[in-house]
């Protein structure tokens, strides 16, 4: 079938992309001293040591918890505010300056202030992640509401849909796609924010472990943590985002 060969083609190109990264990495490690770039093999050995000593699992779980809680709260907040702003021009206007501040202040500053206010630890990191992902989710949701098919809203009005029914049957399914796109984007931003916040505002987690390895010039360990981080992202992408996307947009299959 055409679609299977199409998919196979895609997979081949993805694998080629992965291979390109690995080859590039290997080449760099051949030409640069190990203190700059650890080779793939050395990085994997360091990762093995971390996993054996159980440091890896503990730190990954700490980071995962902070990421998931911060992301969930920030994304849910941005989503709810986005819906309200999409529906009511007044709310949108009121939130506009706050959104602008939120999107303009760099993560480093948010993390520095949060560490100052709340001390080092979980709460600080979660606050940073939440604050950083919120505007992204917000903007995507507002755009989603504004892009809703006005004709469907008119249909709902004519058939006397209650506010609740209109929200459930027209607005929410209508913004499913941009909401999930926003969540994907927010997750990418969140994972960067969590690491930075852990460098500045925590004494544990992947970010902290990374910065410690960096001050000891343990390049292989630094690379091991990068691998751990990528694995974490893959876990979220394939374990959460994709299933959610598939479920929420199941009706789309019919359109293809």
């Amino acid at each position, binding site marked *: 079938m055409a679609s299977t060969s199409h998919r196979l083609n895609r997979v081949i190109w993805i694998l080629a992309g992965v291979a390109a990264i690995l080859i590039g990495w290997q080449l760099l490690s051949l030409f640069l001293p190990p203190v700059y770039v650890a080779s793939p093999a050395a990085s994997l050995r360091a990762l093995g040591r971390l996993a054996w000593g159980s440091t890896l699992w503990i730190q990954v779980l700490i980071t995962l918890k902070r990421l998931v809680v911060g992301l969930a709260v920030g994304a849910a907040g941005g989503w709810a505010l986005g819906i309200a702003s999409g529906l009511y021009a007044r709310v949108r206007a009121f939130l506009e300056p706050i959104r602008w501040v939120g999107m303009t202040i760099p993560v480093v500053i948010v993390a520095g202030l949060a560490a100052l206010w709340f001390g080092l630890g979980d709460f600080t990191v979660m606050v940073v992640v939440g604050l950083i992902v919120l505007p992204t989710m917000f903007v995507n949701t507002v755009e989603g509401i504004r892009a809703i098919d006005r*004709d469907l809203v008119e*249909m709902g009005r004519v*058939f006397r849909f209650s506010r609740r029914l209109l929200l459930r*049957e027209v607005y929410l399914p209508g913004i499913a796609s941009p909401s999930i796109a926003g969540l994907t984007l927010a997750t990418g931003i969140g994972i960067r924010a969590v690491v930075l916040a852990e460098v500045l505002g925590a004494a544990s987690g992947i970010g902290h472990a990374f910065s410690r390895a960096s001050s000891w010039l343990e390049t292989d360990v630094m690379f091991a943590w990068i691998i751990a981080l990528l694995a974490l992202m893959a876990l979220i992408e394939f374990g959460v985002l994709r299933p959610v996307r598939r479920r929420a947009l199941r009706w789309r299959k019919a359109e293809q």
Partner: protein
Amino acid sequence: MIVFEHVSKSFDSLKVLNDVSFRLASGDILGVVGPSGVGKTTLLRLITGIIAPDEGSVQVAQGAVGYVFQEPRLLPWRTALDNVAVALRAQGMEKDGARVKAAEWLGRVGLAGFEHYHPAELSGGMAQRVAVARALAIEPAVLLMDEPFVNVDIDLKSSLMVMLQGLLAGGKTTAVYVTHDLTEALRLADRVIELQADRTVRELDLSDRAAVARDWFARASAQE
């Protein structure tokens, strides 16, 4: 009951309806004919209250409004069955009853077996019939139809028209049927108004329907 009194409506500088008046009693069926862009859909939207007249007044009796839009306008994320059931739910029907009734109505428009199809999996004419089922299922006090059978093939259209005639005959439903095909209007309607390109409105004298049709086709062929 639907009453238009000296209704005018413009979009920006474009005057679409100019001084339109008519009065429909409960149970009346009005046909609206006229060329493309003349304001037929605008007239229906005024009846729903979605848009308001610039001048004059529009009064519509209380009760549910069923609307077959010019395009199906179904919820793409809902199945054919749920699209009809949701409209019933909006009128206050409970879930199971709504689904049973929705299935009945899909059967009546010839869509038994397609209950679980999504709109994208239906042909244009099938989707349009779901929209017809949705509008009729709620047993509206006011039924608005904007070229409802435009994508439906001729045999099916005939049987749906017969069904519609049966439903409306002697009932309390006030209906407005928009079409560019006068013969359709003559089949269904008690009264027919023609919106004309010069923004005037004329009610056709239906005491001699054959003469009206003859005159219509004579004018149509004169334009060609």
